[in-house]
């Protein structure tokens, strides 16, 4: 039986027409994310990370190439059955309570009855939202909103979790919670694909890395092999993204 | 929104009126302050609503140029036929006339129509007279209000009062031309005719004859009046006395004359909201 990657990207290019010129957000990207890994997707602003993620999530159609999630073409809704996604600076339906949000989201995955109820209750407890679960999200703090959005991304018990800058703007305790969650998911055999500018966070949790620069893949591989011994990830990252194309 | 504003304005004014016992034209003042010049358009709309109610909700619509699929479709859903509401439903038009008169106290026609139906169909002569007097305070030079007060008196057999009102109306008539010169002339003829019968009934035969002759000069086809004037001048007794004619006029229903080209007229259609006072005599 062939091994199916959680994410498989082949020859992916995404271009936009903007203000009379063409912007190549992603060029000829090949990427494999095996199952069960915590995969750090790095790059400076404008490198094409979010665009790539948005192609994976079906928000954008690629100009060329293809992408699949667990072997399903990302253009099909079914490809998103086994994934969870937390956008950058997430916001949600503030008129709902946290519990309602989780139940509504679960129904979008065709979950219902006791399974949905139990799963929502478990996530509320795990993410320390019990006291606020029945309050409107409009009354939540920023950290609580981040946690409820994360709970929403986990309601279907996803095999692949895509996180876009999950720790951006969070206090140290909230960051620690996210880090613990990612490690727990890895222990449970889940795949986590996340982008971040917080290289220290990435160093602590990722076992695989890919670095984007100028819409191209500049480097990828297991974290321990990719970063030379004695060099910090930060130095390596700066060196990689500043090199002219073709030198890697 | 205009409806809402007007409704609130009128209610507020009524509450204030009850509380302070202020004169009844106060609502108009408030409406005037609230709506400014737009009150004329709003008042005109209410007046049109009253007319539409009189015709079973069917408003005046210009004739349709083309017969289309949608036109035929619409006709099956939305009534367009000409109909008049029954006498016992006349009161239904009154809220709109109330709003029209309260919103635009200068809309004399709305006052005339409201007073007419209040007296004729609803039997509220007191309300009719109060309304006309209230309009008179805002429009003291409008001859039509005096003319209607005169008619009101005739309908109730108060000939001395009628004569006073009609004399004043006649005096004001020349100072106030209407947009419709034909109607203006007809109004004068009506005032003079009524005055003629009233003078005749009071025994002032020369004065009555002069009134009939003036009408006959303006409308030569009214030979009956000219003959009557000649009879009065020669001392001859007309076949019907002035009193009889006045009583007949007081009791007579105005026949409906509808100017709507778009309406299919029913055989029994016999009264028109806008026609009263405008299509007579």
């Amino acid at each position, binding site marked *: 039986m062939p091994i199916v990657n959680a994410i498989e990207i082949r020859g992916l290019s995404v271009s*936009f027409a903007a203000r009379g010129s063409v912007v190549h957000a992603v060029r000829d990207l090949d990427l494999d994310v095996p199952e069960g890994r915590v995969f750090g997707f790095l790059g400076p602003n404008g490198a094409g990370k*979010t665009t790539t993620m948005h192609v994976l999530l079906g928000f954008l159609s690629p100009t060329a190439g293809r992408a699949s999630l667990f072997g399903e073409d990302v253009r099909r809704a079914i490809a998103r059955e086994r994934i969870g996604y937390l956008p950058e600076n997430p916001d949600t339906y503030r*008129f709902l309570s946290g519990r309602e949000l989780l139940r509504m989201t679960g129904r979008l995955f065709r979950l219902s009855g006791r399974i949905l109820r139990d799963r929502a209750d478990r996530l509320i407890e795990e993410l320390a939202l019990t006291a606020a679960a029945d309050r409107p999200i409009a009354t939540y703090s920023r950290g609580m909103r981040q946690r409820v959005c994360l709970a929403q991304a986990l309601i279907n018990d996803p095999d692949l979790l895509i996180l876009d800058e999950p720790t951006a703007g969070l206090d140290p305790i909230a960051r620690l919670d996210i880090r613990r969650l990612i490690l727990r998911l890895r222990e449970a055999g889940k795949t986590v694909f996340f982008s971040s500018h917080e290289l220290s966070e990435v160093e602590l949790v990722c076992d695989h890395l890919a670095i984007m620069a100028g819409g191209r893949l500049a480097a990828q591989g297991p974290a321990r092999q990719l970063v030379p011994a004695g060099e910090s990830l930060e130095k390596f990252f700066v060196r990689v993204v500043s090199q002219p194309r073709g030198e890697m | 929104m205009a*409806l809402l504003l007007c409704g609130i304005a009128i209610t507020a004014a009524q509450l204030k009126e009850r509380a302070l016992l202020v004169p009844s034209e106060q609502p108009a003042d408030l409406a005037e302050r609230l709506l400014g010049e737009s009150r004329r358009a709003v008042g005109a709309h209410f007046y049109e609503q009253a007319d539409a109610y009189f015709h079973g909700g069917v408003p005046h619509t210009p004739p349709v140029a083309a017969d289309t699929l949608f036109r035929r479709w619409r006709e099956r*859903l939305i009534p367009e036929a000409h109909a008049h509401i029954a006498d016992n439903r006349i009161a239904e038009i009154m809220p709109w006339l109330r709003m029209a008169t309260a919103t635009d106290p200068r809309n004399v026609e709305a006052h005339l129509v409201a007073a007419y139906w209040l007296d004729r169909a609803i039997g*509220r002569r007191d309300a009719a007279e109060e309304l006309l007097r209230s309009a008179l305070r805002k429009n003291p030079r409008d001859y039509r209000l005096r003319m209607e007060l005169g008619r009101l008196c005739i309908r109730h057999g108060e000939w001395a009062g009628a004569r006073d009102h009609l004399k004043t109306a006649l005096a004001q008539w020349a100072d106030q031309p209407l947009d419709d010169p034909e109607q203006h002339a007809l109004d004068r003829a009506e005032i003079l005719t009524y005055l003629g019968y009233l003078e005749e009934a009071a025994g002032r035969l020369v004065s009555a004859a002069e009134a009939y002759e003036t009408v006959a000069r303006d409308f030569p086809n009214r030979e009956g009046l000219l003959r009557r004037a000649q009879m009065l001048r020669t001392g001859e007794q007309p076949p019907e006395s002035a009193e009889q004619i006045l009583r007949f006029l007081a009791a007579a229903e105005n026949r409906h004359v509808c100017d709507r080209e778009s309406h299919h007229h029913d055989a029994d259609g016999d009264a028109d909201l806008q026609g009263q006072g405008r299509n007579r005599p």
Partner: protein
Amino acid sequence: MRIRTIAHMVWLEAIRRKDVYVLLILLGGLLLALVSLNVFGLSGLVRYVADVGLLGAWLFGWILAVVLGARQLPTEESRGTIFALLAKPVSRAELMIGKWLGAWLAASLALAAFYVLTLAVVWARGGHFDPVTLLQALLLHLALLAVLTALALALSTRWHGDAACAGAFVLSGAAFFVVPQVPMLLPDMGRATGLLLHALYYLMPHLELFDLRRRLVHDWGPAPWDTVALTLFYGALFTAVLLMAAWLAYRNKRFPRSEWQ
């Protein structure tokens, strides 16, 4: 189930945003002002209350349908919740139908409340409506709301929420008031303009067909059922066409945040 869930969320938002209650209170205030109107001391007058109550229901139903329809997608996009939503196994067609269904149901519920309030006041004043005509009027009104929400939703796929709202008001207003008058303009038009107007006359929705207030208020009795059924079908057809157009415009739409990053 996904369509139902999306519709349920729209519904909950509409109910919790209090717009409906504000309009209901406004209508109540209007009816109160009307019933307390001193009509020359006459009592028992109710037809004008029914008329203005239904006019309020029309006006407020129209506002709600357009606003609810127009704000769904732009709000999702401006809040960024569209990303979390589309990251679920939800197709854009399901999203579109769910949003429309929720907006339509919420507007319909509000409309039903407006009718109930008007009926209650009318009955309390001793008036009544013919039940069959009332049913027909309500059915056609609901069909109209379906068209209006679909129109606003379709415009919002490409326009900002406020622009979609304004556009839907202008278009539906024109469809209601101007389109029926087009045949009267035709004799004065040149050949090209005449043809254009003629095409417009048949292509634009004839929203005036959905208004049975005159029949209801003035006791003209029920309309022929075959015509009512045909009008309902016409409304459903227009709704389907508008939803299809909305889906075509939205199926490949890129969101601002997906570019330049």
